[in-house]
């Protein structure tokens, strides 16, 4: 077990290191002289050289990378074009996105797991076809369009929910939830469709297994067979799938926050890109990648706790 954890953590660290190189190199691959941009109107060689020296742009690229990484590890991601610390901007935007992602995860997995179990148990019956059909539509309908439709229906026509914005949880929990409900449903739909499909096939597989036949032969009630035996084993597979969907959730947050005007991490990404604020882009992408790697690592480790076979063979799958 110890060796397994060590291997996974090591692999995650390697991926993170390479990701940081990619981010650093990617920003520097953009054509244009940073000193020229910093200098603005000022174009005299002396001033530019001074600027280069001040920002360390005249050092070898490896030294620049080392310094950048060292600072990043200490929570300093530099300053954006408005001279505000990037790390602070990101940290203050993150809670909104985390709340949105958490709520979507909750809604998406709950709907997905329940629908998947129902579809598997009632295989070939109308409710199976219905949930499959809804899942397929959920996968095909782009969620930003779903968001616009929900705004039209629930904000513009019915006036039930606000069309956008954010109220912190501490200020007013009820308003917070009212503002988060539509975005969370929009973001959770895609997830629920994926979870539903996985859950259905995992359940079908477990329901066909020998131990289920044994459980049935012992005379256990259908409820116990499905809930205790089949469901528990299927949840292992679905945990991984939910973990893998976190990337999609981050991507989805970008557009969901744009539509619902939530000043979170996703909205920050788009603003950084539109304003060509490279320090901010660098920080945002690095944090997104780090978060994703850490989540995947956690899912991997969680999976090995749930499924002891992996620990022995040392490889998932």
């Amino acid at each position: 077990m110890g060796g397994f954890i060590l291997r996974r953590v090591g692999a995650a660290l390697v991926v993170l290191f390479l990701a940081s190189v990619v981010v650093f190199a990617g920003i520097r691959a953009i054509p244009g002289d940073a000193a020229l941009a910093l200098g603005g109107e000022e174009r005299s060689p002396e001033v530019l050289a001074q600027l280069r020296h001040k920002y360390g742009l005249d050092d070898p690229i490896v030294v620049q990378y080392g310094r950048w990484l060292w600072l990043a590890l200490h929570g300093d991601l530099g300053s954006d074009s408005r001279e505000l610390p990037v790390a602070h901007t990101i940290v203050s935007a993150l809670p909104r996105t985390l709340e949105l992602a958490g709520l979507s995860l909750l809604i998406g997995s709950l709907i997905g797991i329940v629908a998947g179990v129902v579809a598997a148990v009632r295989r070939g019956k109308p409710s199976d076809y219905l949930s499959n059909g809804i899942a397929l539509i959920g996968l095909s309908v782009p969620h930003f369009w779903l968001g616009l439709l929900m705004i039209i229906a629930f904000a513009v026509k019915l006036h039930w929910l606000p069309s956008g914005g954010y109220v912190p949880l501490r200020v007013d929990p009820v308003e917070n939830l009212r503002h988060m409900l539509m975005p969370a449903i929009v973001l959770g739909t895609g997830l629920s469709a994926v979870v539903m499909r996985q859950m259905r096939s995992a359940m079908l597989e477990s329901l066909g297994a020998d131990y289920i036949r044994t459980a049935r032969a012992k005379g256990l009630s259908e409820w116990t067979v499905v809930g205790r035996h089949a469901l528990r084993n299927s949840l292992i597979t679905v945990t991984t799938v939910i973990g893998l969907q976190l990337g999609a959730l981050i991507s989805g947050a970008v557009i969901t926050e744009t539509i619902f005007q939530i000043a979170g991490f996703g909205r920050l990404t788009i603003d950084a890109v539109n304003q060509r604020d490279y320090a901010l882009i660098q920080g945002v992408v690095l944090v997104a990648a780090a978060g994703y790697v850490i989540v995947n690592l956690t899912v991997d480790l969680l999976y090995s706790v749930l499924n002891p076979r992996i620990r022995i063979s040392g490889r998932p799958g």
Partner: protein
Amino acid sequence: MSYVEVASLSPAARRRRLLGRRFLRRPMAVAGLIVVFVFVVTAIFAPVIAPYSASHTDFQAILAHPSGQHLLGTDELGRDIFSRVVYGSRASMQAGLFATLLAMAIAVPIGLAAGYYRGWVDPVISRVTDVILAFPFLILAVGLAAILGPSLLNATIALGFGAAPGLIRIARGEVLSLREEDYVRAAIANGGSDLTILGRHILPNMTSTLLVQATVIIPIAIVGESVLSFLGLGVQPPTPSWGVMLASAQPFLDQAPRLAVYPGLAIAIAALAFNLLGDGLRDVLDPRTQR
């Protein structure tokens, strides 16, 4: 058709006929194929189908309701929405097709190399793929589109690059299992060159997997193009694209919600059709995953 006729067909033709018949037995897949065909035809013959040009403005009819003159009404500049949806299919189909082709062109050779040459090649490629997969797909595409600059071509490139890592993994896995097949081992033992073995024996046996993957990537790329265009990183207005139309509909959600309905409906139907087609193809070509 007589028994003799069927028997006289080549094995390949017989297999094609069998697969075709299996496909036709799936009504949803056939429906998907038909809708996909309609979208492709619409994109190609957009100038013939659309009653107006995409940029024709009619200031007498701003935000007009649907009528005989304007089938789906007009937008805030008096442009015919139906015509713009028709023209918008061009950007979507282009992005879907070319992003997928680009992803294939990048991923298949790399996946072949990773799966075939073990040694140092496989771990290096697999690690690099892991790194790229560490970036969520849209973040990657947004970042690339930001570096390359906003345009349909660059959005397509970004989507193709974004889809490649996942495809590399799948191609690699396929090669790994095909490599252990007896006929491949026999070809290696016979001293066939790597190129012959990969091109003659492994690649042809991967085509069905790749075809299924293509139908998975196309709808993702279509939705991806609309997302990038919606965010201002893809097609630039006034060129019509479903994503651009949705973005410009946002200020008019209370006055003219239909502006936001039709382009989104087009995206959803196109993506749904490709997904149905893909599900059907998967069932037909890969009986292992049959549900």
